[in-house]
């Protein structure tokens, strides 16, 4: 379903993604793991038409994201690292905008919205403004929205960041459910190794822009002789801390937090 060959992305003299190749089969849950700044988000951006690769080839469902942009976009859903809902609108309205943008026919849109909101336990709150939702509810709504246009692939970029264990657990159960029911391929990134271990069929570990290893969680643990995936991950990527400097987005987010009394 996803085929990546010798993918490279450079920003000036900095190589964010360096000669990465992997395949994800249809219906598979693939976890893409790596420390901060390893190149996960850059890779996702290239897979989802937001960035052009410097070199290398990408195929999503047999299509090149660069030349068949809209056809590819129709085929995937994405949940971004930071929220992408409109807080002023209700859950239902957020779903509706998504449905219209993805050309989902009116009838199907209504029916699927109801199904998905029920599945993600948000139907009761469908007429509430999203800004009144908790972090976990927002995430669930985003994932439900990502499934609305029946994508073949769902990208989840650190979907559980900042959620409590209950919400995380529930979220992954939902994702697994839809993965099995609709045979959706799931491509996810996370910093919680236990999640990857539990949810993913296969794992790829990326560090400094290079794919360090890939395989099933079991294979990776055996390969490094570790008890847990977390140990294996540390063995593969070392234990130095990668500090990212705060960019304008972080600063603005700080500002907004101040502004809205920490509601976001």
């Amino acid at each position, binding site marked *: 379903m996803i085929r990546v060959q010798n993918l490279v992305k450079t920003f000036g003299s900095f190589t964010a993604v360096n000669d990465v190749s992997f395949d994800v089969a249809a219906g598979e849950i693939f976890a893409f793991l790596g420390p901060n700044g390893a190149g996960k988000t850059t890779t996702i951006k290239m897979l989802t038409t937001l960035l052009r690769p410097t070199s290398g080839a990408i195929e999503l469902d047999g299509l090149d994201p660069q030349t068949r942009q809209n056809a590819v976009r129709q085929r995937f859903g994405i949940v971004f690292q930071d*929220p992408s809902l409109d807080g002023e609108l209700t859950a239902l309205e957020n779903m509706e905008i998504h449905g219209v943008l993805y050309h989902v026919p009116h009838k199907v849109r209504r029916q699927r919205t109801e199904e998905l909101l029920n599945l993600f336990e948000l139907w009761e709150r469908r007429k509430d403004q999203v800004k009144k939702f908790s972090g976990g509810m927002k995430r669930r709504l985003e994932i439900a929205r990502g499934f609305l246009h029946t994508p073949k692939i769902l990208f989840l970029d650190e979907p559980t960041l900042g959620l409590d264990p209950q919400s995380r657990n529930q979220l992954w159960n939902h994702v697994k459910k839809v993965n099995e029911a609709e045979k959706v391929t799931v491509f996810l990134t996370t910093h919680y190794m236990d999640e990857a271990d539990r949810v993913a069929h296969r794992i790829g570990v990326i560090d400094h822009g290079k794919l360090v290893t890939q395989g099933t969680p079991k294979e990776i643990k055996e390969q490094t002789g570790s008890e847990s995936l977390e140990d294996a991950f540390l063995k593969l990527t070392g234990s130095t801390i990668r500090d990212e400097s705060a960019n304008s987005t972080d600063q603005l987010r700080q500002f907004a937090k101040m502004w809205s009394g920490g509601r976001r």
Partner: protein
Amino acid sequence: MSAIYILWLRELKRYTRSRAQIVASLGQPLLYLLVLGFGLGPVFKRAGNGDYFQFIAPGVIGMSVLFSSIFSGLGLLWDRQFGFLKETLVAPVSRLQIMIGRTLGGATVACIQGLLVMVICLLAGFRPAHFSAIPLALGFMVMIALNFAALGMAIGSGLQDMQGFQLIMNFLVLPIYFLSGAMFPLSDAKNVLKYVTRIDPLSYGIDGMRNVLGASNAAFDPRLDFMVLVVVGAILMVFGAYRFSKIEI
């Protein structure tokens, strides 16, 4: 088409839901209208320029349309950081459609805002030459709104943080307003001021409104006003669409 419609509708819904903001945004025009209108009125009259309140009302309407439309474009900054922009940019819809939907939405909101201020002006004692002039004035309002919603979109596309926002406010939005002749007659402007006011598109919008509403001291021919707004508006639309197409996230 449906993408344009749904994004237009979104802007409208956001506007009608923020009641506090609607009231707040009426405060400033009200202040200009009442304080300047009644405060400077006697001086203006003594100088032989007629009724200042009649003169400034179209200016204040133009101001609220300007602010509201340009801010709709700068709203991109929020949408970019708090996410909704990304949702639209990865959708299988062209950027042009997204830009048009947003711009039309912003312009519509600005026109509603302008109408509200016009109602306030009428309540406060502003009298157009004839009530049939109001649809014509509305036409000018729409043109001002489209021009500056497109400009806002062009600027918002490149805006990264709040500091940039302040810069735009102080060095673009306020100058556009003060140099537009909203508060003083352009026909009397001299030297540099005369030329600077003439390159400000808002000058023509407000002058056009003054023309059709029958206020004295209009500086240009209303047909010229309209033509300038159409031409500049078309350029700003293309510019806005271009800048929007270059957004990277």
